[in-house]
């Protein structure tokens, strides 16, 4: 049985995939919780460390940064062991087996802040020639590699283009495979202004348990334009099954912009390709996960947008008898906790176990006892 774990981080992303073979893969990392005691967001570094401690490990097989926005990387330079600089090393830091980044992470000009540190790490690993996978059309990296005295040929095995299955994971050996949808060549604009969201990493993960395949789409921050392109390209190649989904991690925290240019009054009406993606391609009992703040009852400028949520709930989830889950609302708005999706021979299901009680106590490290 595989497990997908989402965390209440506000409008920020982190998805940990626990494969049944023990491998752990992390998509994005955002330690958003403030010092304020009233902050309901989870202390991500602590829960991730507890999980690793429980499983007696100190590394992830893969850490993917879908793009360098703060809500996908913040705090990562304090959590991970980075190879390029001793200042980011030391006891307690978590090691990264393979770093997955879109090409923009390598080529972007001076992103600033933590993004610069992640960029240095990615560049260092790429020049070293191991521990990294870059997603793009290979030619996109040719100039940068040449400037740094490395030939594209020498690094081609570390680069995966859209429309391919990521090497290193197979359904037979690992029970999972990853198919890359974005970044894709059509949007590449070498030398021009780089739009991060448009260069973000969008993938479909296919899990196998028993004879059943369960599909997860990791939407990063894709806009309706990106999704439209992805749908068109995928249909051109007649690979509709690569856009089938049982679990959809919504792009951009339930923003209407992932559905359409117009928000709508009560409900966002998606552009045709996006409507097809959600309504046709979702399976019976499918689960949508919005990694966001609680859905507001009033109109709002920032995501999540209630009109987008209304579309997902009414037009996508209800006919499928599925579930629409918001990370900051699960299990309750007042006490959100990790959202765990189990994947087994009956497909995906949202864990709804009691949490506390005697069953929980024995699985938890109690506070220290003793005299001051």
């Amino acid at each position, binding site marked *: 049985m595989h497990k997908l774990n989402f965390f209440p981080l506000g409008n920020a992303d982190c998805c940990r995939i626990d494969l049944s073979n023990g491998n752990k893969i992390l998509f994005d990392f955002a330690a958003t919780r403030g010092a304020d005691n009233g902050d309901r967001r989870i202390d991500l570094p602590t829960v991730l460390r507890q999980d690793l401690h429980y499983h007696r490990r100190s590394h992830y097989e893969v850490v993917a940064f879908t793009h360098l926005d703060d809500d996908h990387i913040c705090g990562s330079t304090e959590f991970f062991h980075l190879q390029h600089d001793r200042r980011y090393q030391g006891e307690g830091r978590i090691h990264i087996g393979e770093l997955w980044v879109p090409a923009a992470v390598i080529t972007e000009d001076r992103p600033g802040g933590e993004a610069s540190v992640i960029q240095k790490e990615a560049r260092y690993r790429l020049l070293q020639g191991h521990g990294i996978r870059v997603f793009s059309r290979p030619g996109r990296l040719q100039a940068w590699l040449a400037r740094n005295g490395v030939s594209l040929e020498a690094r081609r095995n570390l680069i995966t283009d859209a429309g391919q299955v990521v090497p290193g994971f197979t359904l037979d050996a690992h029970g999972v495979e990853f198919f890359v949808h974005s970044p894709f060549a059509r949007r590449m604009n070498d030398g021009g202004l780089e739009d991060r969201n448009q260069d973000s990493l969008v993938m479909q993960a296919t899990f196998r348990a028993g004879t059943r395949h369960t599909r997860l789409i990791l939407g990063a921050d894709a806009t309706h334009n990106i999704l439209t392109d992805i749908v068109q390209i995928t249909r051109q190649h007649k690979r509709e099954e690569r856009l089938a989904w049982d679990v959809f991690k919504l792009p951009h925290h339930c923003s209407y912009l992932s559905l359409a240019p117009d928000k709508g009054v009560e409900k966002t009406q998606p552009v045709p390709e996006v409507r097809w993606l959600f309504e046709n391609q979702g399976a019976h*009992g*499918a689960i949508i996960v919005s990694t966001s703040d609680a859905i507001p009852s009033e109109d709002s400028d920032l995501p999540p947008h209630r009109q987008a949520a209304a579309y997902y709930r009414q037009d996508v989830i209800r006919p499928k*008898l599925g579930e629409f889950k918001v990370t900051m609302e699960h*299990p309750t708005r007042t006490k959100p906790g990790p959202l765990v999706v189990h994947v*087994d021979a*009956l497909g995906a*299901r949202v864990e*709804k176990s009691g949490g506390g009680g005697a069953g929980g106590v024995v699985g938890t490290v109690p506070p220290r006892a003793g005299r001051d």
Partner: protein
Amino acid sequence: MDVQFLSAPGEVIESGALVVPNAVQLARRLIEGSLPYCEFVEARLTEQGEVIVVEVAVEVPQDRVHDIRPVERIAVHFPREDNALPEALALREDFPLVPHLNLRSQEKPRSLCLYDQSYDSVRLRWSIPAFVRQVREWLARTARGELLAADQPLEPFLVWSGLRLILPGNLHARGPATRAGRLRVQALDFGRGVETLLASGRNLGSQDASRNDRFIGISLGGQPTAGRAVSAQPTSVAELHSLLAEFGVDVLGVLRRILPEGLEEPGVPDARLIILTWLPKLRHAGGDVEGAETWAYLVDRPVSEICEAVGACQSHEGVMARLLFTDEGRTGAELPVVPLNVVGDLTRDFAAALNGAPPSDVRVTAIGAGALGSQLVMNLVRSGWGRWAIVDKDTLLPHNLARHALGGDALGAPKASALGKLADSILENDPGRPRAFDEDILRPSAALVEQLQETDLVLDLSASIPVARHLARDLDSSARRISLFFNPAGTDVVLLAEDAERTLTLDLLEMQYYRALVRQSELREHLRELPGRIRYAKSCRDVSSEIPQDVAATLAGVGARAARTTALSGDAQIKIWRTAPDLCITATELTLEPVRMSQHGDWTVYLDDGVLRTLSAFRQDRLPNETGGVLVGSYDMQRKILYIVDALPSPPDSQEYPTSYTRGIHGLRESVREVEAATAGNLHYVGEWHSHPEGYGCDLSSDDRKLFRWIEEQLYEDGVPPLMLILGDGGTYTVHAGSVQST
């Protein structure tokens, strides 16, 4: 697409107006939000109690075996008196028909069967959060198809007649003998009125409590169907008729045809009617029959009245007359039916399942029905293991009752017959009925001889060495023998099991068991008498009169398990279980040695590799000198068998030279006494051994001949044969027994 809900029972009230404590608590917890995955909907008041309607989030997979939704609306009905489980009703209009529902008089709303125990058992651990968790767990597991229908779950929300009906145990598989017909129903009345009806093939011992004329049974069989057949409980014969019509059962037709036929029989007109319905179930449509749904109903009216109410007869001036043409208008609408609690009788398979063990038809002849035998046999009978014959010549006496499976009603009866009868009473109508032989196994009748030839296993529980030897050596049967007996103190039980090929027979195993008592220090006390305990006979298996029944029962349990597991493998085995005073048990399993046989005139000598290894080690230790010592073992004078079981080392004052050996005496008497004590005299001095130096064989020297004659003279007084063993190079040896000529 919108979900439709059924209305919950009762009228809506404010949650503040609730008074039933559990309802108050559930509402409070829901409103304060301390129950995860639950939302309060409303509170209601009914005549019987109060209702909380709640929406629960359910952990459902995408691929659902049953259509359970991620959110389900449930009405929880709390009875006003805290005397029954709260009932959980699924309010969604299209909530599916799933296993583990309670049957109610209306089909909907469906009632979740959450517990398979009575409220009295459940309430020890019952709490509001646990109850809600149970509801959510029930829904989640039903969605996954993990809740399988039990045979007949308790249906706590039905109005029961208070009557129990015991049906033949194999009814689920085979169905009644006829699709529609009379069923013999005995009413059991033990002075509290009839509580139990018996319709199985069982013969009751307590005939005085049973009567055949108070109920008449009719069985009805239906067409096989997939899924649960009975989805609502009928309240009248008319409703039962229409409910079963779709399964091809014509209830009224059968009643109209069969009931009037019995009106002439004495008692029948006043008897009450039991209707048994048997509806075979398919695994899925078009699949195999995998069981049956069995329901029974009581129509608590005289048969004569029923005949009238279904339009088959008419009463005319107090005389019941059969109508030529059925009055189709009379459908039994005024005849109430009440469900009976149906239980299946105990079959071999059912007994085995209840014991968590596979059933077995192995043919076993048990010798001995004493304290160990009777309890051990009953343990196995109750677990559906074995087709039994029981042999014992004794009569049940008062002192036996202190430690016996039989009760005082069998006092003075032959033990074998009485135990056979008890064993026969356990399983209903089993083809492998026990046989009993009230006779001495040492002088068997022709019938017993035949029985022993046809048995798979002879289980010696006789606590008698002569019997065990007889079984081992004289009995004409290829069946494997297994012996189980207590030690004299009654603290230990011993298993001697022959291998299936019978290479190591009981007597040979017995000898290796004795050697272990000598050699293994933890077994030294095994055959010793405990101080203060009186034995009334002189045999190592005569059990003292002071054995607590709790120990006897414990060891009979150990023995039953041992017999069952040993019978599974074909290997020989010796195992000793010892109890501490607190009944903690330690087991010792012995390593078995291959046995060699040689013939010396009339005498057969047995010797195993364990003895030879010991002798070789002694010889090796003293080379280049000769060495020697005494042999211990046992005689079977009756069968002229000599068992060499162990060798004692050379006494310290022996004279050992490269060419000669003279055995000394220091400490020897004590050593031999120790052997005798540890084995209750079963092992003793049987002869002498000595080694020859390297390069010499085992041929007799002139000194050896002199020695042998000396042994012969010494033992002549005891009337036992002389024995001398010579050990040479490379493990060679010669045995000289009986006389020098017959080596």
